């Protein structure tokens, strides 16, 4: 992808423990602008923990994170980090089930809304204009993800694959500088996986999003990612392009040498 000198995000020597368990041990990684970056590894390798550290949901015990070249204060709240431009989706869906797909996606825009609750309630003046602006942005994403037909359907009525897509839409609606996807294809059939893979590629190529994703399905990751980091038991065991990773004996051992898939 387009090489810029400045990485969008750099994590240096991250370590975090839960009780006695060291979930991440001295892991460093860099994510460059415009790339699709993947973190892979067997179950319990610390992939989701890493993602949670990156978006500030967990605080690392050691190490530091640099976002757009600036060191991030350790105690920064996740909502502030989100406002800085990091959006994410969750492995186990986190949609508002009673809300329509449209409503859920609009939630992704809240960070960007400035009018106060009272003028919003009156739908008057600036807030009216603002609402229309945001709705336009959301409609572009609905068009992009081809979910026009479920716009008004409550999230609880949607099948799993479409809920995943709505969640992706909500993350895209925040127009993040960095988009974190936690197992976007988990539990999907082949067709749904191919759809999502297509959307991830398009979001990267057409809309120019920088994407970091965690994924179990090696095949998909190898096909769509530019660079990969492999974790095993909290440690980084490899980093490189898909071809380099495939050829790396450590990775083969981690995946095939254990009972894990």
């Amino acid at each position, binding site marked *: 992808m387009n090489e810029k000198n400045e990485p969008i995000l750099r994590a240096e020597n991250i370590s975090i423990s839960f009780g006695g368990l060291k979930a991440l041990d001295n892991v460093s990684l860099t994510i460059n602008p415009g790339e699709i970056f993947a973190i892979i590894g067997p179950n319990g390798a610390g992939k989701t923990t890493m993602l949670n550290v990156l978006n500030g949901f967990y605080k690392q015990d050691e190490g530091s994170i640099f976002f757009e070249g600036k060191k991030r204060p350790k105690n920064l709240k996740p909502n502030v980090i989100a406002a800085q431009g990091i959006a994410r989706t969750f492995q186990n869906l986190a949609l508002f089930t009673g809300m329509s797909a449209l409503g859920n996606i609009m939630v992704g825009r809240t960070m960007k809304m400035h009018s106060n609750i009272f003028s919003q309630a009156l739908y008057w003046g600036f807030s009216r204009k603002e609402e229309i602006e945001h*709705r*336009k942005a959301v*409609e*572009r994403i*609905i*068009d*992009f993800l*081809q979910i*026009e*037909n479920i*716009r*008004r359907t409550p999230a609880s009525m949607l099948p799993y694959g479409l809920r995943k897509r709505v969640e992706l839409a909500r993350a895209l609606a925040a127009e993040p500088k960095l988009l974190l996807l936690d197992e976007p294809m988990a539990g999907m059939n082949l067709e749904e996986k191919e759809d999502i893979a*297509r959307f991830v590629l*398009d979001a990267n*190529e*057409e809309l120019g999003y920088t994407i970091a994703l965690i994924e179990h399905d090696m095949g998909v990751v190898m096909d769509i990612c530019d660079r990969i980091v492999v974790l095993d038991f909290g440690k980084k065991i490899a980093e490189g392009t898909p071809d380099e990773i495939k050829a790396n004996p450590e990775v083969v051992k981690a995946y095939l040498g254990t009972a894990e898939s």
Partner: protein
Amino acid sequence: MTDLPMTGPHILIDNAKKFPPTKAAMREKDYGIWQSYSWQDYLDQVKDFALGLASLGFKREDKMAIIGDNRPQLYWGLAGCQSLGGVAVPLYQDAIHKELHYIVNHSECRFALAEDQEQTDKLMHLKDEIPRMEYIIYDDPRGLQNYKKDWLIAFTDVQEMGRRFGKENPDYFMDSVNQIKPDDMSIIGYTSGTTGNPKGVMITHRMIADCSRGFLEWDNLDETEEVMAYLPMAWIGDHIFSYGQALCSGFTVNCPESTETVVNDQKEIGPTHIFAPPRIWENILTQIMIKIEDSAWIKRKGFDYFMKVANRVEKKRIANEQVPVGDSILYQIGRFLYFGPLVDNLGMSRLKVAYTAGEAIGPEIFEFYRSLGVNLKQLYGMTESCAYVSMQKDGEIDSESVGPPAPGVEIKISDKGEVLYKGPGNFVGYFKNPEATAETYEDGWLCSGDAGYMTEQGHLKIIDRAKDVSKLNDGTMFAPKYIENKLKFSPYIKEAVAHGMDKDFVAVFIDIDYGAVANWAERRHIAFTSYTDLAQKPPVYDLIREAILKVNKSLSEDPRLKNSQIKRYLLFHKELNPDDGEITRTRKVRRKFVAEKYGNLIDALYDPAKDSIDMEATFTYEDGRTTTMKANLKVRDVNTF
């Protein structure tokens, strides 16, 4: 009449002058909002595109293929191509490679206009094989930015080229338009063809204009109408309706957001005029019935009761008899409680007139809509006649006939019982196929290939394809489609194929309607895994037998057809599919093909010793891959009356 403009581009220029900018010519739902284009916008878009084509070297009589869902850009492209004296060749958007190859090659297209990446991909494959195709133009750029080819251009880029070209050649557009004569070819409509390769029906501007105006006058339609454009652009029905009639009247054509949102979009627009094949009417009815079955029992009972009332009332209305006061009051209550909300939900509350065409419609389906108060009428026509032969008149409706001849059309029945006609829509000939043209015309009369007769009221009644009508061994007339259509009135039967030519009795293949039967089975806690599995469940066989008994009962009432009642049936293991070649894209059964492919199944139907048969089935995917599966199909008997 004579001073009216007769070609598409001339009418368009006229409309842009005649109608104010506030009058919408087209609407498209995009980003969740209906975007409107006035007739002036329509003209500007067409002009820019046409000039862009000209700058790419498009000449008079060049052909342009058009493929995709109904988007304003594709209609503009069609008009743009015609403005330069070109000929548009609309294609079915779900056509597979082989069909597309044949048509694009046969029609000698130099240009192609595709809706999106999917269609562009198909055309790009073709381009390698057909060097004559020089340029591919696409509307929706999504997913195409990495396709860097000189011959692949975006619709908007072509328009930009057109604007530049127009500055240098300000008179080019009008000069081109003024060269078009009413008798120039405007489109080639390829018929899906139940046998052999598709044939290119050559149609002129005059035919489209005459037939469109004929339709409009018949129902007093004007520029205030609203229509939905969602049927394939390659179907002559859509061309007449969304292009010809829209131009001639100035009414508004609405393009839905996507194929999945048609129902909702239709509700928002509230069309006043609908033109759809029976398949669509059947689908809507099936959807309604599923929802009714799922509703609370009191609603269900109420619906059934008031539908009966409505049916009685409609029968009286059709017969032009006085409706009894009691029924009249009950009907009003039913309308308030059920029909009104239902019709509104279907987006049909503003409907003035709706047509069904292309195939026979089941009397029950037809009467259902009429009972609801929807002014559904039947129309008979074909690509070769611009869909213009006969249609029903308000106040002279009956479910079995297709109405009197349309204005300007003469109909006669040949000695063999085939319907022949002459009219303004009669086509010029098949493109590069004079033999087929000669076979179709007989002393200036067009042979429809349909068997039928004129009723006492002077209405045309179509029975079946002339070549399909045959005899059973005992000499009884056997009209397979007539029987199949009767079967298809059941919401649980999607398709049927009747056999009986030179046999002792009639036997049928039945294709269940997966959605409806699956819903029925779920409510009865019948577990199943797939279409094949569901179709072979004994309760499903019983369910279908009920439907067949009904058909036998109605056949027994007609002395000519009494002996063609159905005696044996089997449920098919898969849905009949155009990709597998069993039916055409417009869902007409290819009898010969089915008889050859499933000869062993037919043998089993006529072998009294057999009550089941093993079957190996091959499926074809859209990309041409195939897969095989095994099934055991049961054969069952059914009683006759």
